[in-house]
């Protein structure tokens, strides 16, 4: 891989992996998660998340039978929680791509312990995101109309000028490439699981999934080239997906939506929320499966630094938006921002500021960056804040636009809440299944960042 060269630990660096494990130790420690009976925590968590997933199925069934009127969407707030949730989940996914693609190209070796789980999280988050626009169409069985393929039902040609159309392409490309990246990266580890398998079924399933991997030099050479190429392909996707999601809003002329800073601002926010989710999940996983020596405090601290950096970028964007609202001399623009901080949804924006801008500032201090309880709390607070950010952008701009006679108010219904809670359940269920059946840490990559048995640098 491209980062082979700097894998040689420098004398001044603290080792990334603690306890000086051997290659065999790493294989065993990671495979153990999949091979042994899951701990009690796993069953309890699956019961809860599984129940929520069933709730999701129930609500969606009711929604399809009745119509999206069961949600609180109204006129003028035609987009509300559904699009908020869509942007929220898409954003969560970004950490995975950033870690697997951009940090790889930046030769950040610490990514190796967390990239697998983050990539899995990306895929599950995009799946959750997909539910919302699909259901918002009201007739999900006609979803193929979104694709430019001939359809018999009516003479319909997709509106390529609509950013919602661009979303379809951006998100499906993103999903495909993320899935490929995840899977290709996993092949050597699947082969490890196959080789260690003790039951016929495991041998068969992992054998099929590992595509005949034998670990020969030729395999590795092809694998590393493919990985580098996929990293290169994924890098623009980190920027493009959320930029296009931001276009959904920014191409309009609605005050509070139409801002040229939206693309990079959305991307920073996405990475911010994604890392918060990785921190939340990793804190639990490393504790439950005793992986603290592989996902060390150094990893956690680095993620906290990224949280601080991206949270501050998000804060910068808020500031620039507010400044420009006043600076522009545009009375509508100005009103929207005054309304955001003082209007009926003011509580939401102050929650957002507190969660996204102020909470991560704790991470200026090393003490907090290395405290598991603090980072666990902040990571959850950040995701609450990022959900509210999307809610603010969407609802406060829509509920009061140019004409006071067409102003309105949005109140969520129980179905809004249940759909969102259900999507959280689906996400967690998929993640728990991932923990159960697939290697949670990239075994072969972590082996690359520990000193080789000969004692002479990386492998």
């Amino acid at each position, binding site marked *: 891989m491209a980062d082979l060269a700097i894998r040689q630990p420098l004398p001044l660096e603290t080792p990334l992996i603690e306890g000086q494990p051997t290659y065999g130790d790493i294989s065993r420690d990671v495979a153990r998660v999949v091979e042994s009976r899951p701990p009690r925590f796993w069953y309890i968590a699956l019961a809860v998340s599984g129940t929520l997933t069933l709730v999701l199925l129930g609500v969606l069934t009711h929604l399809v039978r009745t119509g999206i009127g069961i949600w609180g969407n109204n006129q003028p707030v035609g987009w509300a929680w559904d699009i908020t949730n869509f942007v929220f989940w898409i954003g969560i996914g970004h950490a995975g791509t950033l870690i697997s693609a951009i940090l790889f190209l930046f030769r950040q070796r610490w990514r190796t312990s967390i990239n697998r789980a983050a990539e899995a999280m990306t895929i599950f988050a995009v799946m959750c995101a997909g539910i919302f626009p699909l259901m918002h169409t009201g007739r999900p069985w006609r979803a193929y109309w979104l694709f430019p393929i001939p359809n018999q039902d009516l003479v319909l040609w997709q509106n390529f000028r609509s950013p919602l159309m661009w979303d379809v392409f951006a998100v499906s490309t993103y999903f495909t490439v993320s899935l490929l990246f995840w899977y290709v990266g996993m092949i050597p580890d699947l082969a490890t699981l196959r080789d260690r398998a003790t039951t016929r079924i495991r041998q068969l399933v992992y054998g099929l999934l590992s595509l005949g991997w034998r670990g020969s030099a030729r395999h590795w050479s092809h694998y590393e080239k493919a990985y580098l190429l996929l990293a290169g392909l994924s890098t623009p996707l980190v920027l493009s997906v959320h930029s296009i999601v931001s276009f959904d809003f920014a191409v309009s002329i609605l005050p509070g939506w139409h801002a040229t800073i939206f693309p990079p601002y959305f991307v920073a926010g996405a990475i911010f929320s994604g890392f918060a989710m990785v921190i939340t999940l990793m804190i639990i996983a490393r504790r439950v499966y005793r992986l603290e020596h592989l996902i060390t405090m150094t990893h956690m601290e680095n993620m906290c630094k990224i949280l601080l950096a991206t949270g501050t970028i998000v804060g910068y964007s808020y500031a620039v938006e507010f400044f420009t609202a006043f600076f522009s001399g545009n009375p509508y623009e*100005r009103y929207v921002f005054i309304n955001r901080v003082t209007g009926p949804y003011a509580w939401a924006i102050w929650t957002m500021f507190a969660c996204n801008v102020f909470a991560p500032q704790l991470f200026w201090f090393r003490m907090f960056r290395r405290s598991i309880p603090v980072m666990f709390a902040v990571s959850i607070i950040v995701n609450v804040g990022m959900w509210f950010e999307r809610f603010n952008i969407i609802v406060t701009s829509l509920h009061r636009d140019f004409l006071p006679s067409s102003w309105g108010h949005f109140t969520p219904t129980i179905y809004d809440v249940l759909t969102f809670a259900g999507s959280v359940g689906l996400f967690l269920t998929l993640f728990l299944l991932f923990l159960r059946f697939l290697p949670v840490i990239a075994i072969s990559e972590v082996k690359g960042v520990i000193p080789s048995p000969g004692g002479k640098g990386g492998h």
Partner: protein
Amino acid sequence: MPTTTSVPQPQAAFSYRLEESLWRRGRNVLWIIALAAWAACLFGWATDRYNFLGSYLVHFMFFLTIGWGAMFFVMVQHLTSATWSITLRRLMETIMITVAPVTLLFLPVALGLDVLYKWAAPGFFDPHNPDLAFKRAFFNPPFFLIRAVVYLFVWGVLAFVLYRISVTQDEGNHQESISDARTWSAPGLLVLTITVTMAGVDWVMSLDPFWYSTIFGVYVFSGGALAFIALLILVALALRAAGALGDVITVEHYHDLGKWLFALTVWWAYIAFSQYMLIWYANLPEETAFFHHRAEGSWRYLSLLLVVGHFLLPFLVLLSRAAKRNLTVLGLTAAWILVMHGMDLHWLILPSVHPHGFHLHWLDVATFAGVGSLFGLVFWYRLRSHPMVPVGDLRLAASIAHQNQ
């Protein structure tokens, strides 16, 4: 996997300083250019203040944005503990410290405020229009100048402190310098971003007093970061040609610089596209005015040139690994990008001065040489006062030995 014995090491006998005769020659050339150019600038100021100030602002911003880029990179390298770039760090810092003379060079802009900026005329913003209350409070000469002093002070302090810390490291307190540099870099980056954004709004965006774009600060900053990497490549190549650096900067480092050049070319294009596309799509007259001016007369061709020259060409060239590792190709691309950065600033600033079309003026040459020679002199004097690589950094050997793949 190369072992540490087979790669270039910092050589104890090598001083990493310029040969005195070479340095003198460079200094003499710079002084001659400076004197001639400033004489021409003074003549321009006296006879054609309007054109002079337009060209002057372009070239002042040209070197200033590069200084911002340098500050940004120095701090980012500290914060990420990057190893590969240690061997380049002193050159980065020497470019960074050129921000020092900006304080002086801002004077013509301050003195020519009423010529350059339409809003500086009393009563420009209708005093009876409540929507313009913020603009009236924000854009008036005293407040504008106070802000400028704040920016200049902040940049001066940041550049000076970071430079100082690095130089102290040469004398041997490695760990302390590293932690000092990191302590300054994190808040420094934040303060730099805020001041750069505000300076972009004040000095460039306000040339069109009613136009606004939230991404503008990021746009100016990204152009500067790109131009800085381009200049760094050229400086390193020039020193290499003069045989002044031994082999501490290898093709591996150029390859990585080439990757940065590529990444920032794409980043600049991403920001420029975001700004253009969103304004074009929404089609609001108060926003499209900016691009309308730049589609008028020969400005249209400059706009198109930026799409092709600032993005497409370098993008296609730098995609290839071989190009990034070929020093001639890399050098030419870097030079081309610097020209394009100049064109970008022409495109941002001069449509307010020459609304009907792009044309080069003799004052463009004079102001470029004037501002550039002063930046060059600061660079040149600083370059002599310390070794050209951070010899006190214990990671230097690892940095020199850096390999891609």
